[in-house]
């Protein structure tokens, strides 16, 4: 009996094992004959990820030999997740990396060199890109990333409020070369209103923290770091003058909300109680939805004695170094950064950012606007005249130390920009000179 039972079990085991093996093999087989499975990782809110999924679906439809799957990660945990996956060699094939992290990650050889893929692609032409957009994705002269969600810091302004107090449109002034920081101050004073109890119930302008306010440093002839990124230069006369101007807006002119007042919704731009604010161009979709009670638009940053350059910064679409299907992944990356995709993402429908391609920046799909913001030449100005931030591998460390010191100025505890910047520069220099990793 026992030996018969053994025989039966063996046969059944064989059948079950065979079925299991067959299902395993069929599960591993490419679906519908597709050759390559790719994972693509991106961040965003549910709506933005919905857009990403649409793009992925469209690519899959156009490329039946490739199947891309969107790997979603909550934005708050994105960087940690990406770094841990890269370090543990489990990273997706194509990843979007914030440019703040790109310099540190690219030097660790996590990414696939795209130079040869680009060179061998007849549809890829470097001349079609804005130089800075392409340079951001390069390391030691080699291409490692394609720019996505490129954007500049713009000035968003309340057109209705400005018109109601008799101010000229700042975009018209900018076109005439007359939209200066001095003019901004006058406009902010005109728009600020005090309530009966003595405190402002409407402010003219919001002061941003570094790096959002870097434009004014350049406008007054200042620089942030030296060319080698070894020394902080923010104690220069130009930087001191620029930041003193901003601090005076808050503590002398009282036209900018204090940190506590600005942190809560009554004085957010959408509330209509703030005349002007500076932020990335990616804020446009949000303001389109949230601003209902007034007209708004965008304007490039004001001119200073040394011009008016906006910050320009993008994010990098990279390929994981150990991607098993680099050709297919490159094809997907080309699709995601192609002219057609850029026109859709950055055109009037979505306004997610600035195009990296010159051809898109001058196209009707990008320039024509049926919804705010209508001053689309402001975007082109940022693309043509924007400047890059000195993003080093230790950007997070020294910017945290810098802002901790600058907080003294913005909070009014020390109203001398010279003294604050002197201390800040010393602290930043210590970090820049110290050994990494300690």
């Amino acid at each position, binding site marked *: 009996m026992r030996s018969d039972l053994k025989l039966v079990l063996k046969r059944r085991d064989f059948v079950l094992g065979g079925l299991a093996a067959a299902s395993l093999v069929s599960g591993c087989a490419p679906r519908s004959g597709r050759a390559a499975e790719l994972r693509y990782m991106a961040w965003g809110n549910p709506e933005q990820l919905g857009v990403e999924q649409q793009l992925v679906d469209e690519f899959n439809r156009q490329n039946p030999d490739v199947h891309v799957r969107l790997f979603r990660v909550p934005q708050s945990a994105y960087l940690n997740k990406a770094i841990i996956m890269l370090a543990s060699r489990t990273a997706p094939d194509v990843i979007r990396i914030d440019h703040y992290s790109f310099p540190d990650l690219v030097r660790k050889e996590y990414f696939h060199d795209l130079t040869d893929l680009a060179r061998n692609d007849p549809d890829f032409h470097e001349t079609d890109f804005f130089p800075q957009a392409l340079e951001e994705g390069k390391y030691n002269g080699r291409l490692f990333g394609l720019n996505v969600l490129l954007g500049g810091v713009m000035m968003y302004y309340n057109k209705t409020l400005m018109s109601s107090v008799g101010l000229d449109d700042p975009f018209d002034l900018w076109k005439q070369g007359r939209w200066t920081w001095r003019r901004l101050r006058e406009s902010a004073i005109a728009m600020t209103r005090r309530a009966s109890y003595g405190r402002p119930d409407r402010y003219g302008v919001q002061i941003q923290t570094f790096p959002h306010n870097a434009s004014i440093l350049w406008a007054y002839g200042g620089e942030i770091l030296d060319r080698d990124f070894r020394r902080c230069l923010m104690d220069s006369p130009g930087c001191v003058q620029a930041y003193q101007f901003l601090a005076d807006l808050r503590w002398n002119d009282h036209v900018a909300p204090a940190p506590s*007042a600005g942190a809560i919704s009554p004085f957010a731009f959408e509330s209509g109680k703030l005349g002007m604010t500076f932020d990335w161009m990616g804020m446009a979709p949000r303001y389109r939805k949230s601003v209902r009670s007034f007209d708004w638009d965008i304007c490039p940053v004001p001119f200073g004695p040394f011009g008016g350059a906006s910050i320009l910064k993008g994010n990098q679409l990279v390929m994981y170094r150990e991607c098993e299907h680099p050709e297919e992944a490159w094809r997907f990356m080309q699709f995601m950064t192609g002219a057609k995709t850029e026109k859709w993402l950055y055109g009037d429908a979505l306004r997610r950012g600035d195009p990296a391609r010159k051809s898109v920046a001058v196209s009707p799909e990008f320039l024509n606007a049926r919804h705010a913001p209508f001053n689309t030449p402001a975007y082109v100005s940022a693309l043509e005249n924007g400047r890059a931030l000195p993003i080093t591998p230790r950007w997070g460390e020294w910017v945290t130390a810098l802002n901790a010191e600058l*907080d*003294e100025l913005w909070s009014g505890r020390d109203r001398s920009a010279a003294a604050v910047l002197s201390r800040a520069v010393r602290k930043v220099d210590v970090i820049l000179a110290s050994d990494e990793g300690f």
Partner: protein
Amino acid sequence: MAAREGLIGTLFIAPWLIGFLVFSLGPMLASLYLSFCKYDLHAMQWVGAENYRRLLTTDPLFWRALQNTIIYVAFSVPLGLAGSLAIAILLNQNVRGQRFFRTLFYLPSLVPAVASSLLWLWVLNSENGLLNHCLMVLGLSHRACPRWLEDPVWTLPAFVLMSLWGVGGARMIIFLAGLQGISESYYEAAYIDGASPWQKFCYITIPMLSPTIFFNLILGIIGSFQVFTSAYIMTSGGPGNASLFYVLYLFRNAFEYFKLGKASAMAWILFAILLGFTVVQFKHAKRWVHYEAAHD
């Protein structure tokens, strides 16, 4: 037989044991090793005690974070214990609505830390916050009101005040249980001897509750040293590093700067500090903690 029983017992605790080894002891030992390395998830280099040396001798933010945390602990723990004990005594009174009041006082401790931090951001807002509004109602001018989270002088007091939000929580429950374990016969005897309520509190309640107080003190110090969420959500360590707590600085080094060796060293320094505190407290406990003798 004994061996077989031992084997069965081991098998029963094996899931916990495996979990402990894999998820607790293993990572602890790994972090001890990492604390002697320079490691950023990409490359690991043995540097000996260099992380410890630099933390203790050349990192001003380390000492600032430690100082902030010690000040926070020095105020929040005694105030928290006193508050919890006071509420427990009140909730131990046999009055109408006793259950309702117990629930009411316990509710704030159930609010998640992130939600309560966002709530307190509003309460402590220096322009439009509830706290300053109440102070102005009491007669303080707007200028004289503290700027709480904007002023380095008032930031730590603000966090200490926030910590008292949860005095009606687990600590209070433990005190309540301790109070209910004190025999009525002591109070009856004291009443007969003509003791006042204050005397009863000092000579009966406190000594009989001393083991519970000791327990809450140990856990309170350990917990307060690890303050993180509120500072991370509300101030990110500002203004001017005034709320840069130890664990927040550790987190920043580990997960923002990816200096995992340095962060591991910080973790072990914290462990040593807390171990030292606990050992000292246990040694001094013999002087003031009275354990009731068992009755046959």
